């Protein structure tokens, strides 16, 4: 009796909390997050010393709390005061102006509104990652993982094949992009002097990424053409063989460094570039899967013969999907190579494959939302649990198994991602 009462109370309290924040639009939350990260930037170190932390907690204090349990109270205080309080307060306080601004902008110029939201998001990420270099790397790798996961979702989620070829696509993009920048713009021991003045390099860097993507797309023909005749498990093997072949080929090409790998990529994958690429990738893929091509993919997945009867050119559809997905995986690979500034063929093996598959199926099939959530959460989780050392590789797989058992299609599957709905005003009617 008493417990049921308690549960009711809790539900009601949470319900009231939710009502209280219900009308805060995305714009408000972004402003709140900006307030939080600014608070950290200006007062973080002082507050950290005040609550007995040696330095600003790197990833929300997880690494402190797991390594030294005596720091947990300080970390909790820090997270509450620096992140939660400013974000909630600013979000709630700015609710009505934010709502009005969101309604105004998305009513007149939706494009401007989206750009404004993206600028705010970038400001949040920039300020947050400004605190130390480790955060910067984590943010960049996470954004790249979003691109990879999303491009994998085009094949595995929307088209319903089980493709294992993503590490191979990524490797092609990474190597092609690296060769482009190293040969043209740097004085390296492997390829001699720079062919073009290095000063114009950063402007042509996007071209390097596109070249990487195109090489990867050409490589994808090796998987796309067999996919006309076979599908399912046999295509899985073909794509797996593709990954092995690419890896082995690179290991045997002395001109790209063989098994030793390739180093000396210029440091051009800065946060704005990675962020811009990710935004473009999410936008383009989201529009692609909502277009008739995307619907054709779903039709091919659900019933290839019926799709054929409905005048869908299945061969063309498969070809487009593979090349498109491989292109973005290649771009992500190029960015990845320039973030780490070192690639070797061992990076693009079974480990990478397991990682990207896990991120995609954890997030959810057939869903742009899901891929973003999956990539971000698995990446952050695996960084945050780093202090657990080897036990991390017990916890994360267990979590994934539980998700698979209770939500077999992933956390957020089959959900449409509509940016315009996301950014609109949340005010109840009348305001």
């Amino acid at each position, binding site marked *: 009796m008493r417990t049921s009462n308690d549960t009711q109370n809790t539900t009601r309290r949470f319900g009231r909390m939710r009502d209280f924040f219900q009308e805060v639009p995305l714009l408000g939350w972004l402003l709140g997050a900006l307030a939080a990260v600014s608070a950290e930037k200006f007062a973080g170190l002082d507050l950290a010393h005040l609550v007995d932390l040696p330095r600003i907690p790197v990833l929300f204090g997880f690494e402190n709390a797991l390594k030294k349990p005596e720091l947990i109270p300080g970390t909790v205080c820090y997270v509450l005061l620096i992140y939660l309080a400013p974000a909630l307060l600013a979000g709630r306080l700015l609710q009505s102006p934010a709502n009005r601004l969101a309604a105004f902008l998305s009513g007149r110029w939706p494009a401007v509104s989206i750009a404004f939201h993206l600028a705010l998001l970038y400001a949040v990420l920039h300020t947050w990652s400004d605190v130390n270099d480790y955060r910067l790397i984590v943010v960049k790798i996470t954004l790249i993982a979003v691109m990879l996961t999303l491009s994998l979702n085009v094949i595995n989620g929307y088209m319903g094949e089980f493709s294992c070829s993503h590490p191979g696509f990524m490797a092609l993009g990474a190597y092609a992009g690296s060769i482009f920048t190293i040969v043209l713009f740097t004085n390296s021991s492997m390829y001699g002097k720079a062919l073009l003045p290095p000063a114009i390099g950063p402007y042509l860097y996007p071209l390097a990424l596109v070249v990487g993507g195109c090489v990867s797309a050409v490589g994808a023909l090796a998987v796309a053409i067999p996919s006309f005749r*076979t599908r399912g*498990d046999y295509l899985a093997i073909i794509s797996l*063989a593709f990954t092995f072949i690419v890896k*082995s080929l690179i290991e045997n090409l002395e001109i790209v460094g063989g098994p030793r790998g390739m180093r000396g990529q210029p440091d051009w994958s800065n946060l704005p570039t990675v962020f811009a690429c990710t935004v473009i990738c999410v936008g383009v893929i989201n529009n692609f899967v909502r277009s008739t091509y995307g619907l054709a993919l779903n039709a091919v997945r659900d019933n290839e013969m019926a799709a054929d009867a409905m005048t869908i050119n299945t061969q063309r559809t498969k070809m487009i999907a593979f090349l498109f997905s491989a292109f973005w995986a290649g771009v992500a690979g190029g960015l990845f190579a320039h973030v780490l500034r070192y690639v070797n063929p061992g990076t693009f093996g079974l480990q990478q494959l397991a990682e990207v598959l896990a991120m995609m199926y954890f997030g959810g099939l057939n869903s742009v939302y899901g891929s973003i959530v999956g990539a971000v959460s698995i990446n952050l989780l695996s960084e945050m649990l780093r202090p657990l050392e*080897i036990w991390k590789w017990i916890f994360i797989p267990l979590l994934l198994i539980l998700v698979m058992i209770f939500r*077999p299609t992933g956390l957020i599957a089959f959900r449409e991602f509509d940016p315009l709905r996301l950014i609109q005003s949340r005010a109840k009617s009348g305001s």
Partner: protein
Amino acid sequence: MTVFLQNLINALQWGSFYALIAIGYSMVYSILMLFNFAHGDIFMTGSYIGFGVATAMIALSAAGMIALPNWLILVLTILFSMVLTSFLGMFIERVGYRPLRDAPRASAAITGLMIGIILETGNLILLGAQRIKFPALVQPVTYDLGGVFVTNQKIMIVVVSLSLALALHQFIRRTKWGMAMRAMAFDYLVVPLMGVPINKIAAMTFALGSGLAAAAGILFGVAYPVLDPYMGIVFGWKAFVAAILGGRGSILGATLAGFILGFIEIFVAMVFPSTLRDFIAYSIILMILVFRPYGLFGEPYSVRLRL
């Protein structure tokens, strides 16, 4: 010619590992229609269990508790480890796969991958990162057959694995349980209506497959006596390739494809620099699959693909 024969014998040995693992893969795959990506790690665990059993028995006989010759210890090790690993396989099926039987097949594949990672990590936590030496149970004796050297280990490995494959084949062809398994591979929706306990059959499939993987693990330990927790990964994926190459649901095909994979790898390494091994081996497999898209012994199937 002698070089060729020598490599042929090496390839037979190498192929028997692939064949034994691929059979387990292929059985699970044909009967339950799912990828058991944990299979390579079951092979690894079987090898470690064999190490534990063998060490315990050697210690017992050294202490004078039981007096057993080495060959008997080996036989008992293989049998005990097969039984123990079968229980592991059934446990994995119960926990990781049965709840997902009606889910998309890819979800079960992810569970398999994750169970594999847990097995590897659990092993690292239990035994530490150092490599473990498998106790030498068979004193190597080398026979010289006109320039071709054959060790008794190689003969034993090939004979044991072939007879296990044959025994399984007979089991599936001749017994009632085998018939139930074949029926389940044929249509797993109708079979329960005929009164076949599909959960028992599924558990048994996993038990048999894991037992064979354990046998492969111990034979591997005899031939290459250094074990490490990640040795199952590459074997698992290659056996996956062999299982699919053999064709869906064909024990014979999986065995043959395992040997073919072994032959390709050994002979490529003989003719070309060994770094090109994976490249050429997989290119050949790619070609085979382009021309025979349903594997060597498989048939095109129109069952609902539940990916």
